């Protein structure tokens, strides 16, 4: 019995083991990132951060590298647990929800003292602000453009990349006839597909949700027949892409990985994509060497998705000043030139390569998501594409369904105008 008790006691002791408090560093900033440590930007960023630590004795940057798929989950858990890093990477889609949760630090005052603010594209600062308060800092720009395999267009006798939706469908048909390959590609699911959908909606002059006079948001498609018709045209466009053989029917279930990889492999001719496709050149040099960049084709007005990838700075962080200095450093010319030479939010860091200028030239036509909690809304946007492409539902019915779903979600997060 005694030995039984002894074993029990040990077991309980292991249970209750707690670690001694660690020696407090002068200042440690916890920074959560999601880079691939062996890709160029990851290597460059690591070097810059090491230099920053060297030139700022007493400041340690504790970098946590987490795969992107897991970052959102980890952040939300930490926030729900009353804990957070000082700053982190993230998708622009999280701006609204993190702000609604009260997790983000208001950076407006810090930015006033910042001499470099005028070097950042003004619409970038606007997009990261909510009600005039700067809630995040820019990280890089992921503007979308039309990428084309020039050789496939030439083979099909298409002189210039398409300018409109109709041309896109006609060109895709020609490419399919001449080369046997599909002309265009979309992402039907995953994080990429709402980004594409919001672009097509903007190209036809409609948006997901509009700010109303009471400062809250609402989808107005159901109130305005003209808007509903325009939204329905977007779904009809998706449907005709599939029906007319412009895209691979499998595209309805593609995520970004399939979309990018198949384009990199030269499986189809044109895609709306970001400057990171440059990294596919290293993987598939043969298939990627004929790629040319141009503006996305549109219907009513030119528009593209303007991904303003942010650094989020958290309220719970204990060192606001040091965190601001560090995030400002990462928006400085030196860091941006080294890490984001092609896609910097700074107007003085530009590159003449097609992977740089070809994309940043489109910044003025960029659209962003409304700064509301988007978790459910983006999911329903994906579902609306599934209903259109997989279930073959009527475009107008899909538009009506999405409009109602968006307003339901806005209501749930307390952001619905008048609700």
């Amino acid at each position, binding site marked *: 019995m005694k030995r039984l008790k002894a074993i029990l006691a040990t077991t309980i002791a292991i*249970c209750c083991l707690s670690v001694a408090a660690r020696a407090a560093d002068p200042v440690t900033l916890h920074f959560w990132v999601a880079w691939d440590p062996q890709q160029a930007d990851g290597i460059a960023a690591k070097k810059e951060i090491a230099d920053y630590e060297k030139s700022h004795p007493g400041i340690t940057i504790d970098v946590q590298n987490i795969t992107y798929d897991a970052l959102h989950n980890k952040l939300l858990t930490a926030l729900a647990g009353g804990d957070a890093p000082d700053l982190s990477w993230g998708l622009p889609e999280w701006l609204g929800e993190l702000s609604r*949760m009260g997790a983000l630090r208001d950076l407006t005052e810090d930015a006033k003292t910042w001499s470099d603010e005028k070097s950042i594209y003004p619409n970038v600062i606007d997009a990261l602000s909510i009600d005039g308060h700067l809630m995040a800092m820019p990280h890089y720009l992921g503007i979308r453009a039309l990428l084309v395999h020039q050789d496939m267009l030439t083979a099909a006798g298409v002189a210039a990349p398409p300018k409109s939706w109709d041309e896109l469908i006609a060109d895709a048909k020609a490419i399919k006839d001449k080369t046997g390959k599909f002309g265009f590609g979309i992402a039907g*699911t995953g994080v990429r597909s709402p980004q594409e959908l919001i672009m097509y909606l903007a190209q036809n002059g409609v948006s997901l949700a509009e700010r109303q006079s009471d400062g809250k948001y609402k989808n107005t498609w159901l109130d305005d027949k003209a808007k509903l018709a325009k939204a329905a045209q977007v779904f009809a466009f998706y449907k005709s892409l599939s029906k007319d053989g412009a895209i691979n029917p*499998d595209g*309805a*279930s593609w995520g970004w990985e399939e979309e990018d990889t198949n384009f990199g492999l030269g499986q189809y001719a044109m895609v709306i994509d970001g400057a990171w496709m440059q990294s596919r050149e290293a993987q598939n040099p043969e298939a990627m060497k004929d790629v040319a960049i141009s503006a996305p084709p549109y219907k009513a007005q030119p528009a593209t998705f303007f991904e303003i990838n942010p650094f989020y700075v958290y309220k719970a962080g204990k060192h606001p000043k040091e965190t601001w200095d560090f995030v400002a450093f990462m928006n400085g010319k030196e860091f941006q030139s080294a890490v984001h030479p092609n896609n910097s939010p700074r107007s003085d860091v530009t590159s003449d390569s097609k992977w740089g200028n070809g994309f940043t030239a489109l910044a003025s036509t960029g659209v962003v998501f409304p700064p509301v909690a988007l978790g459910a809304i983006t*999911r329903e946007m994906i579902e609306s594409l599934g209903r259109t492409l997989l279930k073959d539902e009527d475009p107008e019915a899909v538009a009506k369904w999405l409009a109602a779903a968006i307003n339901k979600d806005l209501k*749930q997060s307390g952001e619905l105008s008048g609700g």
Partner: protein
Amino acid sequence: MAAVRWRGQSTRQAQLQRVAAYCLAPATIVFLLLIAYPLASVLWDAAHYVNLTNPSVSGFAGFDNFTNVLGDERFWPDFWHTGLWTLVSVAGEYALGLASAIALAQPSWGRGVSRAVILIPWVIPIVVAGLTWTWMLTPDYGILNLWLVKAGLLAKPFYWLGGLNTALMTVAVVNIWRSFPFYTVCLLAALMAIPKEMIESAAIDGAGPIRRFFHITMPSIRVVSLTIIFIHVIATAINFDFIWVMTQGGPLNASETLPILIYRFALEDFDVGAASALATMTIGFMLAVFFVYWYGTRSRRAEAV
């Protein structure tokens, strides 16, 4: 005399109770520390309005969260998906586990190596296995489709994970691949414990291999089988990783199960109340399954006596 004996029994009983208490203490502590609080918070949240992005709603919700969940158009489809996914996965795992265990119980050349090889799927992390299978199954650059087409089994590459009717079953096959080795280990251990003489004497009595299987092998591994099946029914029904890694519940929610829906409620809608209500209902369903199983086997046990 009688009194002394009674007292003796009582101290014996008390002593046994103490022994039981000591033996159960460590498990109880781990349970109270790590499970009881989360469980309590799930039950509490299920009855309250908890929305992470909407601090203006709070307070007691009664059954509101439950009615919201039941009213969600995804609930019933996901419910059936969960049942189908669990049934197919566990049945497939058991069938493969039993077949492999029987084959591995036979004396054969290189048995040790085959036993180790069969365990390999199980030591590959689910996330890595899920990604690798997703890649191998891709129509355009996946090796499996290429081979199936080359072998003439398919006319053209098929998007297994992209089809409304095939996605869930494809993930189930991968889940079977990854999970059956655990059955193999348990069933093999049980098979090896069957005394050889029992089988041989049955063979002397003229029992053929099929008869021997159903009259000696199956009864001997019944307890182990029921235990692992029951535990895997629960584990599969609440499994999240495989489906999330491979399809995220898509396309068009065709492979969405209740745990995925719980995740969506909690981390996409930020409606922790609805997520907790659904989790509570899931626990309820599984307890119901357990009671059916328990009373089913109990009446059988009673008949046997």
